[in-house]
């Protein structure tokens, strides 16, 4: 059974290799090969899942040691996989949603001549992501970690002929690298602290290490998480990442990769539990990001960017929960899964809309599409209800739990965090309603573009709608399924551990408050975009709005400080290298040249002056000899 774990990764890896090396001859079948292989690995996942369910909770951990990777003295890195409830959850999410999106892409990328390569990249991503969640030590996790980064780089920049896409891809990779730095430092710290970096030893002995070290490790892991999960301050890349094809945004930048940070924190729970300061930092980051993302989401007119902001904010919720410790881990993962469903669904819906609208992304040019593309409308609508936490849908359960837990942290912290979470809920309701209204309601606002061909909105082909439907189903019932009888809790508890939080305010109060926030948000949105028609060109808007449109000026900051500053630094260094470092050497050479030129003049061609020098030399010689005797 363990060997299946390896196959789980091998299948998509094989796909990637075949598709990328295979060359043109595979162009016709490439996409099906890719879809098939990801489906295969999903099937493997299911088999393993069933197998785990067969065992009792304590023995639901499978370890598969493949080979020794880097053995140097005390430094022993193995290629070992660990399949437990946590990673199992992710495996199913990744392969499941992944397969659906493969299917969707078959239709979506139909007219792209490089479709084969697209599927190769998708498979590569699956393999890397699976490696990430199945690794049994941090170094191997690191491989998957950067692997998904690479895949995301390739996919964001898939349309490389667009400079914007290439730039976005580069940006994503670089920002992630900053995070990776954190991860590698964390691993080094683990090595010097525990003499190793495999989950087992490190996590089981976490408490023995000094709190200072643990805090350091925790903060470094948090940095890594920020990079991968687009949390403040490393969130800037996610918005630009929307340059990639929409299925990519759905799979990588909504459902799976961006949640890797949450996985990392939850996986390292033992460390964080022993380092409260680090935990606090995590919660703060989460809270800030969930507001940040929400606010950005409110201002964007680009449907994908709006969704990207929402993703950011939802992951903020998860990180917040993960920062709360045992009372939050389970809910973080649960929200992660449900979010995987509805956010993927929303993105696919957006993709379907764009598909029908000649890749138009500006919501102000949509409007009243519900009649043109009913299926998209319904699935998107269900996803919408789910994400704003409409009672009974999955978002309701998972988010509500997180808000409760936030209050349950207790003390002022609890109130602040909880308040932030509530506020976030309200804003979420607002911007999602906004998206909904601007896209599907009101009257049509689209005109023929400059070369006169007017978009003819139409429903997408079956191959695209089926995945949307499936995901919609998931986002409707997922939450309820998990929560009833605390199924998910019991499933995950053995790994993450769980402790009931006791919030100062009753559970129902929280729920009620959430509902109120929800209604307020929806109401405002309706007042703004439902009742009166939406202007086709964005109004100037308030200061905050304008700031939010520019991602709250975070990019501008980066540009001024990092990019410009960096350019100046490098330019001046180039100058230094040329004039100073090189100059010294050339200077010495030139110096000898000049000296030589001067000495040459002594050789003036007159025999008598030669004689003089000889005479002087003789005199010196004599003088020196006498002097030597004198002293």
């Amino acid at each position, binding site marked *: 059974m363990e060997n299946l774990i390896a196959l789980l990764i091998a299948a998509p890896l094989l796909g990637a290799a075949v598709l990328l090396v295979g060359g043109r001859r595979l162009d016709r079948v490439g996409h099906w090969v890719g879809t098939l292989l990801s489906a295969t690995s999903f099937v493997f996942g299911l088999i393993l899942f069933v197998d785990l369910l067969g065992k009792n909770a304590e023995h639901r951990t499978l370890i598969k040691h493949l080979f020794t990777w880097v053995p140097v003295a005390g430094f022993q890195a193995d290629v070992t996989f660990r399949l437990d409830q946590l990673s199992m959850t992710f495996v199913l999410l990744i392969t499941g949603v992944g397969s659906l999106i493969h299917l969707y892409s078959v239709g979506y990328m139909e007219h792209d001549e490089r479709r084969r390569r697209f599927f190769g990249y998708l498979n590569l991503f699956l393999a890397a992501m699976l490696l990430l969640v199945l690794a049994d030590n941090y170094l191997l996790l690191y491989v998957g970690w950067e692997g998904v980064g690479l895949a995301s780089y390739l996919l964001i920049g898939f349309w490389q002929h667009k400079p914007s896409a290439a730039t976005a891809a580069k940006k994503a990779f670089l920002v992630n690298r900053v995070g990776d730095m954190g991860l590698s430092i964390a691993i080094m710290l683990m090595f010097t602290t525990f003499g190793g970096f495999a989950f087992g030893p490190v996590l089981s002995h976490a408490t023995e290490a000094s709190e200072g070290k643990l805090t350091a490790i925790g903060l470094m892991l948090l940095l890594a998480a920020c990079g991968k999960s687009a949390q403040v301050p490393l969130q800037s890349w996610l918005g630009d990442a929307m340059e990639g094809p929409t299925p990519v945004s759905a799979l990588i930048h909504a459902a799976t990769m961006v949640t890797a940070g949450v996985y990392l924190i939850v996986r390292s729970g033992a460390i964080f539990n022993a380092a409260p300061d680090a935990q606090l930092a995590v919660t703060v980051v989460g809270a800030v990001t969930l507001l940040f993302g929400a606010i950005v989401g409110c201002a964007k007119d680009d449907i994908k960017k709006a969704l990207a902001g929402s993703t950011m904010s939802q992951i903020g919720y998860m990180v917040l929960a993960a920062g709360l410790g045992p009372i939050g881990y389970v809910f973080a993962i649960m929200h992660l899964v449900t979010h995987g469903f509805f956010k993927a669904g929303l993105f696919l819906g957006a993709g379907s809309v764009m598909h029908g609208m000649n890749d138009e992304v500006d919501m102000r040019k949509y409007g009243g599409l519900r009649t043109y593309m009913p299926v998209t409308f319904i699935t998107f609508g269900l996803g919408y209800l789910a994400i704003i936490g409409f009672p009974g849908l999955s978002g309701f359960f998972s988010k509500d739990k997180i808000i409760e837990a936030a209050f349950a942290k207790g003390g002022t912290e609890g109130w602040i965090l909880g308040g932030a979470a509530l506020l976030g809920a309200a804003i979420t309701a607002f911007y999602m309603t906004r998206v909904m209204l601007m896209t599907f309601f009101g009257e049509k606002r689209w005109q023929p573009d400059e070369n006169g061909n007017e978009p003819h909105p139409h429903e997408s082909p079956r191959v695209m709608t089926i995945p949307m439907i499936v995901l919609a189903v998931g986002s409707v019932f997922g939450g309820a399924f998990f929560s009833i009888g605390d199924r998910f809790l019991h499933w995950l508890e053995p790994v993450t551990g769980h402790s009931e939080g006791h919030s100062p305010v009753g559970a129902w109060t929280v729920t009620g408050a959430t509902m109120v926030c929800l209604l307020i948000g929806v109401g405002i949105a309706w007042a703004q975009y439902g009742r009166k028609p939406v202007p086709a060109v964005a109004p100037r808007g308030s200061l905050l709005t304008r700031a939010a449109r520019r991602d709250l000026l975070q990019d501008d900051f980066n540009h001024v400080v990092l990019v410009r500053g960096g350019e100046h630094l490098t330019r001046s260094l180039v100058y230094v290298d040329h004039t100073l470092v090189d100059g010294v050497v050339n200077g010495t050479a030139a110096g000898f040249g000049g000296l030589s030129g001067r000495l040459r*003049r002594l*050789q*003036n*061609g*007159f*025999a*008598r002056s030669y004689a*003089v020098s000889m*005479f002087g030399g003789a005199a010196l010689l004599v003088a020196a000899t006498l002097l030597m005797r004198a002293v």
Partner: protein
Amino acid sequence: MNPVNYLYLAALLFTIGATGVLIRRNAIVVFMCIELMLNACNLAFVTFSRMHGNLDGQIIAFFTMVVAAAEVVVGLAIIVSLFRTRHSASVDDASLMKL
């Protein structure tokens, strides 16, 4: 009379010769000055020979004369050929090669 004085004389002559070499332009004169230096050496040899009461110095003086004569032969030959090509015996004119 104290033979040391002859040494002083020899030194004096030698210095005069050397100075001549340094300041005179005419190759012949320069050459003569060198001869003067050689003869100063001879004087020194003879003097020392007298002081030490052995004859080596005097013998050497003869050798020196012979050598000097040989030098004259070679030297004059060279200088004359130079003179015939340049129509000048000035040492300073012979400064094609420099630096």
